[in-house]
């Protein structure tokens, strides 16, 4: 039963974060690329001021899967890195926090581009 509730919370919060993005796409001239940047920045800022951690606690993947969650993870992991390594953490933290997501995307893009070609051509 608690799993169903967890899934519902993820659905609700994740869906709402996407609706905000949809309103931005429809009502402003922002391209999706700019919205991705905006979302990551928003995640870093919200993570830094401590707003996002409770949301991630509440919604799980609903808060961490949207790109704001990527930004939140950058901020959170950088703070942890600073706790461990002092000022070095400010340089080491961000890229190591991003590494799993970015490397998975890069490796799958490489593999896919070897085996497939663009459908537009």
């Amino acid at each position: 039963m608690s799993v169903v509730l967890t899934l519902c919370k993820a659905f609700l919060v994740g869906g709402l974060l996407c609706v905000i993005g949809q309103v931005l796409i429809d009502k402003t001239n922002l391209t999706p690329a700019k919205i991705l940047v905006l979302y990551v920045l928003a995640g870093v800022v919200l993570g830094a001021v401590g707003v996002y951690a409770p949301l991630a606690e509440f919604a799980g993947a609903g808060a961490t899967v949207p790109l704001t969650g990527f930004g939140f993870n950058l901020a959170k992991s950088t703070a942890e890195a600073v706790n461990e390594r002092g000022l070095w953490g400010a340089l080491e933290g961000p890229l190591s926090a991003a590494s799993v997501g970015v490397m998975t995307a890069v490796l799958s893009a490489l593999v896919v581009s070897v085996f497939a070609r663009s459908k537009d051509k």
Partner: protein
Amino acid sequence: MMSVSNEDYAAMTNRAAPPSPLALDCLKAFLVGGGVCCFAQAITEALVLLRLSREDAKLLAMMTLIVLTAILTAAGVFDRLAKHAGAGLAVPITGFANSVVSPALEFKSEGYILGTAAQMFSIAGPVIVFGCSSASLYGLIYFFLAGRR
């Protein structure tokens, strides 16, 4: 001549007009985006049941979404879905993954170095630059406010 008050007229046009595209777009974004997050949560819970740590389960769920996006992008399915889902697929990590895989494929004809590898970061690059730079700045501030213990 029929007299129609402003309120009646507004009500009549409301009935005649098709549902606003914004409302429909938002509904689709909500359902698809919520569905993607719910799917990731389900994978996480399943992996936790298989005795993986929650941290690892979250990472694996995210990786699943990225790899699935790469496969669907290569199959040409993702773009068709994204046309309907809008932000529902663009805002989750699927949008980030698609922004890496799609140009990698599209510019393959220009070679692996200047095509695939260079274009891979045309959108992901700015995301990483601004995301990591702001996180780094936050780390600096955090160091002077709280980290020096």
